[in-house]
């Protein structure tokens, strides 16, 4: 038996989480370093996956399969396609940066008590979350996926509620109330989605007699498994609802602004850059493969909802007073693009959507983490409390501008590639929707540049006049991400090459081919 690489990639952070949690209270710096080392180890494993993965090879690679709960046919089945590889890479890459950025986030909770260990808890929860996210990207057994799709709510709930942002205009008590509200709202929303999905998972088992994604997809493809139209549609809706909550898609989005606003910036990055991607990833992997006909049936409605997300999220971002809330609404707009790309069902749309997941992770991480550095200096999240920061902290302002430019999809930075692919991929099949979505790029420029203008330019406000520029630790977080944004904007080929074959497979699952160019079609 070969080395179970996929299992190892998920188990390492899980074990690391337990080990970190077990570090004695007095050794909290050691706990931080341990957690960081584990996350770097996980990154090394993820890179190994990337290297071992052969884009031209079988659809699912590095597969592992073991019987688990035989009575229900639940198996421990793992396997990755190009899309999963890209997202595992993103997750493993971001976690070390998130840890470094949040290096001191739990310090303020330390009471000096020997039993209470917030630092250990914070870092252990991040590792636990990483483990669960990674295994959800790997699982090819529907039930296995479901378990971790739900289980990841637990560490995240505690990360939001227990380690949230203390900066609040109405003081510590208001912050605490807001925090628990946000955490509970996040949990209830996602549990509701999860419960509906659970019903659909069970329903799927009843219909298909298996939880194995590969088996069901194969049986559907060769016709040996027939689903009644109604049944397929209901099951699809059950799955899609859960994913649309997580993604989040309008009008199921209202948990995200609260959750991101009340978390510290690193946790907010985990939410939007990593955890939410499980939702869009699962649409590609489960909705389209398991329920191709229902997916096509639902496409018009989903595309309209995605379009609303794009425009609505951007407009709401324009109207925000809170930096983190603004970024949250911007993310909602970007998730609209991702979902639109997936359901446009063209090569450009889906490759674009997958690249978008990766690129959005990077760009939001840059923007959000720097926003976090900024907020920690001034102790306020309100845009109006800033002004003239570029004068006192030019590196912070400069990198923040790069993050903003990435958010508005400037060519040369990674998000442009994916956004344009999604737009083109949508346009060839649904021109009206493609054109309408293009308005999103104007609005993105508006909210990004207004945020930059109000916080960074103009006369220096008294409260920010003594603000230090980025520290070495912060620069170590930001610089590599910025370099990556530029690199993938100019040379996205390495990621595109991994993703393309998987997209081709997915499109053939739903029996869709790209529309022919008009000139060719006429011939």
């Amino acid at each position, binding site marked *: 038996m070969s080395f179970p690489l996929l299992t190892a990639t998920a188990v390492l952070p899980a074990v690391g989480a337990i080990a970190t949690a077990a570090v004695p209270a007095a050794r909290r710096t050691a706990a931080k370093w341990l957690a960081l080392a584990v996350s770097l180890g996980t990154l090394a494993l993820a890179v190994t996956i990337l290297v071992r993965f052969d884009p031209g090879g079988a659809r699912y690679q590095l597969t592992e399969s073991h019987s688990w709960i035989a009575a229900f046919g639940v198996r421990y089945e793992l396997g990755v396609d190009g899309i999963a590889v890209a997202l595992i890479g993103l997750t493993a890459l971001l976690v070390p940066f998130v840890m470094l950025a949040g290096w001191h986030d739990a310090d303020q909770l330390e009471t000096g008590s020997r039993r209470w260990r917030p630092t250990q808890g914070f870092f252990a929860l991040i590792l636990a979350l990483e483990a669960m996210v990674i295994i959800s990207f790997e699982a090819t057994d529907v039930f296995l996926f479901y378990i971790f799709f739900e289980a990841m709510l637990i560490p995240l709930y505690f990360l939001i509620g227990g380690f949230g942002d203390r900066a609040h205009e109405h003081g510590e008590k208001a912050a605490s109330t807001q925090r628990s509200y946000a955490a509970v709202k996040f949990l209830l929303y996602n549990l509701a989605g999860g419960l509906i999905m659970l019903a659909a998972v069970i329903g799927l088992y009843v219909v298909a007699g298996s939880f194995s994604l590969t088996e069901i997809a194969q049986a559907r493809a060769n016709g040996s498994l027939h689903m009644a139209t109604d049944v397929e549609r209901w099951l699809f809706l059950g799955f899609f609802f859960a994913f649309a909550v997580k993604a989040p898609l309008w*009008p199921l989005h209202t948990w995200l602004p609260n959750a991101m606003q009340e978390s510290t910036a690193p946790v907010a990055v985990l939410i939007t850059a990593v955890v939410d991607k499980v939702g869009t990833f699962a649409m590609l992997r489960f909705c389209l493969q398991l329920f191709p006909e229902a997916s096509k049936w639902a496409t018009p409605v989903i595309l309209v909802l995605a379009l609303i997300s794009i425009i609505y999220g951007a407009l709401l971002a324009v109207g925000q007073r809170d930096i983190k809330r603004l970024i949250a609404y911007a993310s909602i707009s970007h998730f609209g693009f991702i979902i639109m790309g997936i359901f446009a069902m063209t*090569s450009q749309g889906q490759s674009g959507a997958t690249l978008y997941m990766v690129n959005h992770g990077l760009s939001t991480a840059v923007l959000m983490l720097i926003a976090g550095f900024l907020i920690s200096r001034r102790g306020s999240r309100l845009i109006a409390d800033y002004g003239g920061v570029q004068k006192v902290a030019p590196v912070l302002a400069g990198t923040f501008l790069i993050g903003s430019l990435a958010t508005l999809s400037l060519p040369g930075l990674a998000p442009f590639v994916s956004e344009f692919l999604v737009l083109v991929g949508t*346009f060839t099949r649904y021109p009206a929707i493609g054109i309408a979505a293009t308005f999103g*790029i104007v609005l993105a420029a508006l909210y990004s540049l207004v945020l930059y*203008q109000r916080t960074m330019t103009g006369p*220096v406000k008294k409260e920010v006049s003594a603000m230090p520029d980025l520290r070495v630790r912060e620069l170590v977080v930001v610089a590599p991400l910025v370099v990556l944004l530029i690199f993938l904007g100019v040379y996205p080929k390495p990621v595109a090459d991994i993703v393309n074959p998987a997209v081709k497979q997915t499109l053939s699952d739903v029996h869709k081919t790209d529309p022919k*160019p008009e000139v060719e079609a006429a011939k």
Partner: protein
Amino acid sequence: MENLIALLIAAPLLGAAVLLVGGRRLDAVGHWIGTLLAAVSFGIGLVLFADLLGRSADQRTLTQHLFSWIPVAGFQADVTFRLDQLSMTFVLLITGVGSLIHLYSVGYMEHDERRRRFFGYLNLFLAAMLLLVLADNYLLLYFGWEGVGLASYLLIGFWQHKPGAATAAKKAFLVNRVGDMGLAIAIMLMFATFGTFAFGPVFSHAGDTSEGRLTAIALMLLLAACGKSAQVPLQSWLGDAMEGPTPVSALIHAATMVTAGVYLIVRSAAVFNGAPSAQLVVTVVGAVTLLFGAIVGCAKDDIKKALAGSTMSQIGYMVLAAGLGPIGYVFAIMHLVTHGFFKAGLFLGAGSVMHGMNDEVDMRKYGGLRKYMPVTFITFGLGYLAIIGFPGLSGFFSKDKIIEAAFAKGGTEGWILGGAALLGAAITAFYMTRVMLLTFFGEERWRNRPTASPAEPDVEPAAEDRGTRAEPHPHESPRVMTIPMIVLAVGSVLGGAFFSIGDRFLHWLEPVTGHSEGNSPLSALTVTAATMVCLAIGVAIAWAQYGRKPVPVVAPRGSLLTRAARRDLLQDDFNHVVLVRGGEHLTRSLVYLDHTLIDGVVNGTAASVGGLSGRMRRLQNGFARSYAVSMFGGAALLVAATLLMRAV
């Protein structure tokens, strides 16, 4: 030889990277690094130019493929460059004028503590602009297109601590984004129509699709051109962009970037030629803008804003010419090049005046400066003669050709367009004479008064208030600034004649753009004569108003038109009321609705599920934690079970 093309871009790009990342260590030499790399790029341009000249006319297209940029099934975007006569012309203009302005900036920005960064941005601009004109497909062009937008944003807002500069920068980017949206849609349309957006296949297959498609693509390209080239209705950003340092106004907002729209239209000739109705719209946009800009230019007292109105107007001429199709393409580009010389020269002259006048920009507080700044006076004066089209100078040749071509369009359209162009020539002569008289002639209105702007609330502070305000002591600028002005003045004088004699420019560009003679109802001589009459009338009126009579230091109230023109013909007021205010109301109500309606429904559902809302809170808290604990326990059990199973 084609391997050199990438170096054209690489040199300034390297400069930008080094200067922006290099940090304070480079403060002492940064400006020379930037200038040197601009000059290197110009040198490579000259080498390539010599190479092209050595080839026969149909062998003058070089391409260089670097790498595959975005490879996705069915979608191929490559980093490939195309150097032909059209892009070569631009390369020389961009790097040539660019190098001169780099040199000028060494002196102009001498006292600015962020000079290194300024040169980094200038180099970034050069790289992006070269990418724009060298790209071999529309997506790569889009890369350069937004790249110059970024550079423009950074440079307009260079003095970020001034709210006016920051706002102007953002406005420029946003208005341009509206145009960029047009370019994005045009590219998507091309992809849906041709399956590609590379120049070669698009141009050769343009005939295979319907006129409707081509019209749609052409109109979207025009929208993009309107944004970048400040044409009506997307012109409002250019005046505000004068908040940037004056060398920026000269390079980006006069000589090069703002003319990118004209490049786009001429480059897409194959598309526009197949879409006559779109071409008509192009000519209308050009004609309207040339009058609009000219009228605005007449009313501005800020020397840079008067020149900005003029830029808008002159680009209007180019767009008009480009809309005329093969009759006008060559002349559009010829005027673009000569305009690049004289307008850059005029802006540098204006900068030199400001440099000697404590950064005062109000021409009503100038006067009689010719004695104090002889070099500036002469170079500015030559630029002035060139732009109004004084016989023998650059503008005479290039503008005259456009007016002729407009008449040659034929029919009523020809008369209207030609008439508009003639009228524009008269107004140009008026406002430029006004600038000239107010600045260099008449009383020395700056004496015995500090030149601080009057405390009018709606007047922005002077564009560049770095020095303290005392009575100015006008003086000539240092040599590092005057040399570029002299070189550009020489270009303004000789360029037109050099291009026109023996139709050199026409023969050079014709293989790319095509050319045809229209049927002009008027002879060339008649057109020239009419232009001269218009010119004389414009100059005479300006002389009557600003030369013979003393000029009041505080602007008189003025007629309704004057007041409207001072406010950019109320376009900004319209934008403010409709877009800004309207947008604010929209976003505010949406924020409210998101909270009350959508979140309200969700919370309401949650409340009704949980029974009484008062109990819900308690229930939620208890519920969540206990649920979480049981989930965690369950998950742990399952994991344990997995391990057990595997052990068995």
